[in-house]
């Protein structure tokens, strides 16, 4: 067994493993979207909500940032399946769990971004008679979302890597496929390096794309 065998296994297994990219991207995309939607609501609650709501969201954030992903995956998958006897695919559970965790982190990113928008913007919006809701939607959020892009980029890389853990539930993504090939060819070492590089590439492409987005929507007089 040498590099020769390893490279053969990698070459032959690559197409099959790459087939998992779609599932991985779906899981990541789904989780990030859910995280954004929920995270935005949480952030708004934390910045503009009454005290009790702020406390509640604080607890939610503490909870989902404190429990390990794996434990949460098992809890939802086995706990829900067994106890409530609902049939949900591992794929769905993976997106939901990752989405909930991501929403907790994203809420903090968005909260920071909203707070970074100068206070004068809200004042001016109110001064021309905008209701708070309109001011938030048309003045604050457009600016906050732009400010949140770097933090969001970071969140993307985290979720991308965390998606590998969903393998534990049997989601047929990259990690699962790599393992499948490895168990057949016994070239674990090279295959894990290969799949690691694929994750690296996906992470790089994603952050690059987000940087392009950041430049395109930048305020202060540039291209729109």
């Amino acid at each position, binding site marked *: 067994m040498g590099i020769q065998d390893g490279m053969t296994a990698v070459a032959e297994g690559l197409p099959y493993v790459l087939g998992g990219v779609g599932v991985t991207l779906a899981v990541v995309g789904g989780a990030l979207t859910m995280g954004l939607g929920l995270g935005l609501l949480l952030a708004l609650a934390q910045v503009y909500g009454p005290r009790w709501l702020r406390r509640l969201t604080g607890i939610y954030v503490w909870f989902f940032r404190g429990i390990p992903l794996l434990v949460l995956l098992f809890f939802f998958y086995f706990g829900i399946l067994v106890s409530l006897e609902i049939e949900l695919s591992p794929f769905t559970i993976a997106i939901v769990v990752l989405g909930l965790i991501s929403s907790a982190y994203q809420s903090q990113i968005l909260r920071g971004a909203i707070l970074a928008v*100068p206070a*004068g*913007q809200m*004042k*001016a*919006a*109110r*001064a*021309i*008679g*905008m*209701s708070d809701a*309109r001011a938030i939607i*048309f*003045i604050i959020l*457009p*600016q906050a979302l*732009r400010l949140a892009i770097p933090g969001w980029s970071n969140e993307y890389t985290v979720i991308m890597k965390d998606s590998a853990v969903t393998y534990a539930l049997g989601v047929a993504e990259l990690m699962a496929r790599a393992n499948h090939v490895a168990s057949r060819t016994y070239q674990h070492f090279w295959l894990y390096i290969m799949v690691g590089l694929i994750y690296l590439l996906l992470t790089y492409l994603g952050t690059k794309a987000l940087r392009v987005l950041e430049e395109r929507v930048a*305020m*202060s*007089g*540039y291209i729109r």
Partner: protein
Amino acid sequence: MTRTQPVLRLENIHKRYGDAEVLKGVSLELFKGDIKVILGPSGSGKSTLLHCINFLVSFEQGRVFLREQAINPANKPELYAYRQKIGMIFQDFNLFDHLTALENVQIGLVRVKKIPKREARERALAELSRVGLAEHVSKYPAELSGGQKQRVSIARALAMDPEVMLLDEPTSALDPELIGEVHAVIRDLAAGGMTMALVTHEIGFAGTLAREILFMENGVIIEQGPPDRILNHAQQERTREFCSKIARLHNRSQETA
């Protein structure tokens, strides 16, 4: 008939920040076409007073009347409608950074007054021309000079058809050579009969523009009256002290200019 009824009236406004009482029972009347300038040292509450008028800042005691109708800030629709009638110009402009000059003026029309986009655009262009910025309508705030930014903010406020304009130190954040263009716009407004309350340090400008000057210190209006009286023959000693100090500074800067 309407001459006897003030457009805007403040009755006994009290405001505290924590333990400190910043406004100690301030009352004020603005009749149509009035231009009142509020002078005073830092911390006297002038800026806070303006912010109380359109309820950007809440206050503990007192009432605000528009055409003798008391405004109830708890009634949101009433509050928003009222704010449209009060235009406010800020010291640091507060233009919406993610919008062009045109969009800044337009957004109030489209999102608050619910005017169709095309009509709103026409109106916005007109207002920007009126303040002399027709060639800069597609620029973002970061691409504009301070004087231009302030003029956009005036256009933005005027687009809402206000009955009263509040100007909170409109030129304090501007480089000296840019102050003139903003003064010109304000003078135009005054000539057109706009009712205004202006907070400023520019004593010379205030003297020529104001119908009445109010001198505030420590949350109270110490003295008020026609510009000539307040600036040159003030009855209260504090007023005299302050005005002469400012006048000296102003003259000195004029000499070196």
